[in-house]
């Protein structure tokens, strides 16, 4: 990790070099907390380059910083082989042609490459259960749409930058839609309610329309 930044009196923002380091640090912190090593810590929020650690008034910046210094992040295995999810996708998204054009591939090749990769949930955000998945084919790195849609259907599988995301509920969005899934991404009666929590491995399987 490179830098520790105060995010107010009850937060410490840990800046990492890259996304794999974020994922390793988040996993290590979760394990440390489960082992009781992070008393007073409320939330561990991984994002693209940072992990935010928030704490209550029984902890402090220096206590969290000390705990961080004592962690062996490198040794952490940030993959969870026991935690793999298969998501069946119908590849008929409205932006499939555009993604093919941007990547210089045929639609069939876009679909083949997207389904061939193994993904991991790097972090969540934007909406409950919305996961940012990494590990996709480098040829499928495409920009967001120039104009976001005001309505993206629930279950849409979409691309933006290095990420694949799935919209857990209907809402606005600017990602390139390549398909849809009926996987139960967000279920309040399940523990945890999010199907895709940070660290989860994901495989996409192709489903015919």
């Amino acid at each position: 990790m490179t830098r520790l930044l105060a995010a107010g009196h009850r937060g410490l923002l840990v800046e990492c070099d890259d996304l794999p380091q974020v994922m390793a640090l988040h996993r290590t912190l979760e394990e440390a907390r489960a082992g009781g090593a992070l008393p007073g810590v409320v939330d561990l929020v991984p994002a693209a380059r940072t992990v935010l650690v928030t704490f209550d008034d029984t902890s402090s910046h220096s206590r969290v910083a000390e705990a961080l210094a004592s962690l062996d992040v490198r040794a952490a295995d940030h993959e969870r082989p026991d935690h793999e999810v298969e998501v069946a996708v119908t590849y008929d998204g409205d932006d499939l042609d555009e993604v093919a054009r941007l990547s210089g591939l045929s639609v069939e090749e876009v679909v083949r490459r997207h389904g061939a990769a193994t993904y991991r949930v790097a972090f969540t955000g934007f909406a409950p259960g919305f996961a940012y998945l990494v590990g996709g084919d480098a040829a499928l790195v495409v920009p967001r749409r120039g104009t976001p849609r005001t309505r993206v259907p629930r279950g849409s599988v979409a691309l933006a930058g290095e990420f694949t995301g799935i919209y857990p509920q209907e809402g606005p969005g600017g990602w390139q839609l390549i398909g849809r899934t009926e996987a139960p991404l967000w279920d309040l009666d399940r523990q945890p309610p999010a199907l895709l929590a940070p660290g989860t491995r994901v495989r996409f399987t192709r489903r015919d329309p």
Partner: protein
Amino acid sequence: MIEVLRAGPLTTLQDLGRPGLAHLGVGRSGAVDRPSLRLANRLVGNPEGAPALETTFGGLVLRFTEAATVAVTGAPAPLCVDGRAHAGCTPVTVRAGQVLELGMPTRGVRTYLALRGGVACELVLGSAATDLLSRLGPAPLRDGDTVELGRPAGPMPGVDHAAVAPLPDEVVLRAVPGPRADWFTDDSLTRLGRAAYEVTAASDRIGLRLEGPALTRGRTHELPSEGIVEGAVQVPPDGRPVIFLADHPVTGGYPVVAVVHPEDVPLAAQARPGQPLRFALQRPLL
């Protein structure tokens, strides 16, 4: 049972929210002015985090079909039971058949009404809070809704009146720079500490939107989204700061120039549109 005759501009059920779920994309939510919620519950002998009603600019009219003990805290608003005025910050007994009216607050925005026994409702992820950003928890109250009383969990407290500091004319919020103060020009930071801002009508449970001097970015490239804390002062492209409150997004892609002191967040939560607001910038914490 309680019948909602008029729900007012926005009345929601709130407790202390859903801390600890941000990694799943779920924010804390809960009462924006937590000390006032806690006090209202203490006054009627509830656990501090029991679900209570959070009103926005009052306007709430309730008919009680059974007797209840209530307490009103937060933004001071006229409270009447069957037309008779009662004080805030003290337990009030309502008899079966009586109508309670909570008027427009004279100061502040959010008035809390706690009911002895709390409110019986289905919890979502352990909380009764309505999160207007994530659309979690019960919908805001509507005219004609009914509210079920919970069961008292403890004895009534010995105190019958709580003294609270009056809400100020000008809101002054202590704030510490960072985590992204270095993304702004030096004079922007100076401006943040000296400028007179005004709270705008676009403010809500997600954040307090301010009108006033714009802050200028020194670094103009895109910030990768990062975790956000309550009280964060985020600066969108127009340069006008937003102070994040209970229903704030879990992550955000605009830089956070400073964070309001946790003890001053309730003051921000009670700041009214048009009210002057200043930041008292403190030394960086790290």
